[in-house]
């Protein structure tokens, strides 16, 4: 896993290569290389994760392989896509390989999706535009409390061991997200075990 900033990738398919050499008679392969599966905003920072691969055989092998490969949630797309098709007398198989990426700088591991792709529409935000300069007449909106960050700092104060700390963090986040303002203030102020544990009393 590593970060790439300002990466230059176009959204159009820019090329494909064909290798028609097979190991055995009646077998040949066809390789297609694409910069990405959907348009990429090269101006935005992104995190690129390790390769993911999908496979399928049948008339719709390429579509099936890509659908199989797209099994990660919380990412924005796939880069350096290689589709390797194999044709034999009776079978057409495809293997799609790509690097998943996410805009921003969070290296949090994507979640594997167990089921099929969702049917809900996906909203793709446009490129970021600079925030308008405040005229001073409208008060700025208060920043939302960052439960994730606060709980990450809070959990080790009340528990030890990775599982118990993770549980403490999860419980903290669940409560924090309920907009429990007193709790939010408490965990923000807590900097050692005694004051942190005091936050856990109902």
């Amino acid at each position, binding site marked *: 896993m590593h970060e790439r900033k300002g990466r230059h990738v176009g959204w159009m398919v820019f090329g494909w290569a064909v290798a028609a050499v097979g190991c055995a008679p009646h077998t040949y392969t066809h390789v297609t290389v694409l910069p990405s599966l959907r348009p990429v905003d090269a101006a935005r920072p992104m995190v690129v994760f*390790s390769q*993911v*691969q999908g*496979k*399928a*055989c*049948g*008339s*719709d*092998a390429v*579509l*099936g392989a890509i*659908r*199989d490969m797209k*099994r*990660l*949630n919380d990412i924005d797309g796939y880069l350096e896509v290689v589709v390797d098709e194999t044709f034999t007398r009776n*079978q057409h198989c495809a293997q799609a390989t790509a690097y998943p990426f996410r805009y921003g700088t969070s290296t*949090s*591991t*994507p*979640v*594997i*999706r*167990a*089921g*099929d*792709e969702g*049917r*809900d*529409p996906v*909203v793709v935000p446009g490129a970021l535009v600079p925030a308008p300069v405040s005229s001073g007449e409208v008060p700025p909106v208060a920043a939302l409390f960052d439960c994730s960050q606060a709980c990450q700092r809070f959990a080790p104060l009340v528990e030890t*061991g*990775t*599982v*118990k700390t*993770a*549980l403490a963090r*999860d*419980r903290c986040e*669940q409560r924090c997200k309920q907009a429990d303002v007193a709790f939010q203030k408490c965990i923000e102020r807590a900097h050692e075990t005694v004051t942190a544990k005091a936050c856990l009393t109902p």
Partner: protein
Amino acid sequence: MPTNLQHKQAIDDLLAEPTSRPKAERVFELAREDPGGAQQAHEEVAPAPALLPLDIERRPFRRNNLFMSDTPKNIAVPENRADLVAILQRAADAWLGAKAIGDGYGFANTGETRGYLIPMVDKLNRILQVDRTVLKASVDGSNLCQFEAGATLGNITDYLWKRGKAVFNQPGYENLTFVGTMSSGGHGSGSWCGPLSEHARALHIVSVDADRRVVEFQIEHSDGISDPAKFAAKYPGIELVQDDRVFHACAVSMGCFGVIYSATIEVRDAYNIRETRRKFRFSEVKPRLGELVADQGPGKRLHSIEVWINPYEVDGDVWCVLGERSETEDPPRGQRAFAIEYGGPEFFYRLLSWWLAQEPSAVPVIMDVALSATQASDVVLTAPKGLNFGATNLAPVTACSCGVPSENIGDLADDLIAFFQRRAKEETAYVTSPVGLRFVKAAKAFLSPAFERDTCMIEVPTLLGTPKARETLKAYHDFLFEKYEGRPHWGQVNDMPGDRLATLYPSLDVFLESFRVLNPKGFFDNAFTEQMGFRRP
């Protein structure tokens, strides 16, 4: 932002004139402006289609009762713990999910995976030595038994019997793995004794953390058997977690938290079982049920009972066989009835299949004859044999089971009998095996069907090929859910929608806490977790 009415109007207009380009443009224009609203409006008019179907090859996979529409990408058989760790790391590196199964005897979708399928029974089936050097001084190691997750009930009880020991209770089939059965809420019979999860004292789980690293935990009760300092010194690579909330989540977790490598359970001294099975009118057994359930347990007359009911009338009555078991020091003697000892699949299945096809209304009398053939009195068996269902395990069935409160079970059974009779009369949909009542003590595992209530598990095995079997099992589940808060057995056929979970399991939130922590990135998610909505926001 377009309103729901505008969306619907545009959809209706296009439906009325599907060749009109302007009307199509209107639908798409509104959808572009408000994708969520468009989706909702379309769903309200008619459910959206699933993903576009692709013409790709599917190679179905079957292992005993486990069936998947597509073969997993890898089937990996670990030989030891290090192997298991390496397999899971390979899966994680390739962004592939993983699922461990016993031998695939479950009827549910809990073992499904598109990634790595890990059958545990083939190699990881050893009985291990309990490491007494890390136990607390107060713990009696002589009544503990540790084994790898692929060890079957048969492996475990054989090992224990030779050492004068036995499990407290067991399910009725020796080829089930203890861990697989426990993980899906499995149980034996006995109102004094909880399901298998309640006998576990430690679970060694291998999982994948948020950074895709394989990690190992030993999960125990808050006052667990291990001494934390000794354990940490001897096993630095395994994190000891002594926490009831985590333990009761893991004990019945359907493989959603990782792979259980080994379990340590509490066992007892060996014992024999005296068994009597007699046929009665159900109306004769019903008023005795309360007393029979109360009279089970150490120091009482009975070890357990089972009631197998033919829900259809024969000679104007509903009949059942009451099996009574008690502990005894008598040596084994006698023989179980023909239908239990030898009455497995062939003759009964073929007979019933023929009659189902030719004349379904004969099913009640054929079941009656079969039930009658299970009777025998005063047979003494070793506990592993006495708690086993016998050759009937070999019948080719699909099964489902549902846990209901054991209070007033007689009235509930009457209601259920009427339900099955209605389905037979109105839809010619029969169950083709007797319906079983088995009693289990309340459990602490959050997702156990017996969670916090003394439970009667009502089992409905149905012979394969029975017409409308799946519909009957689903209707049976729905009936028990709606009227009696019936909870499905996770290892058997289970079509329950996930939105019922919160109603049935009051500690679901605590279970989900451990799910998020121990399986943070979904490597152990599958069709079952999707069905239950464990990862739904």
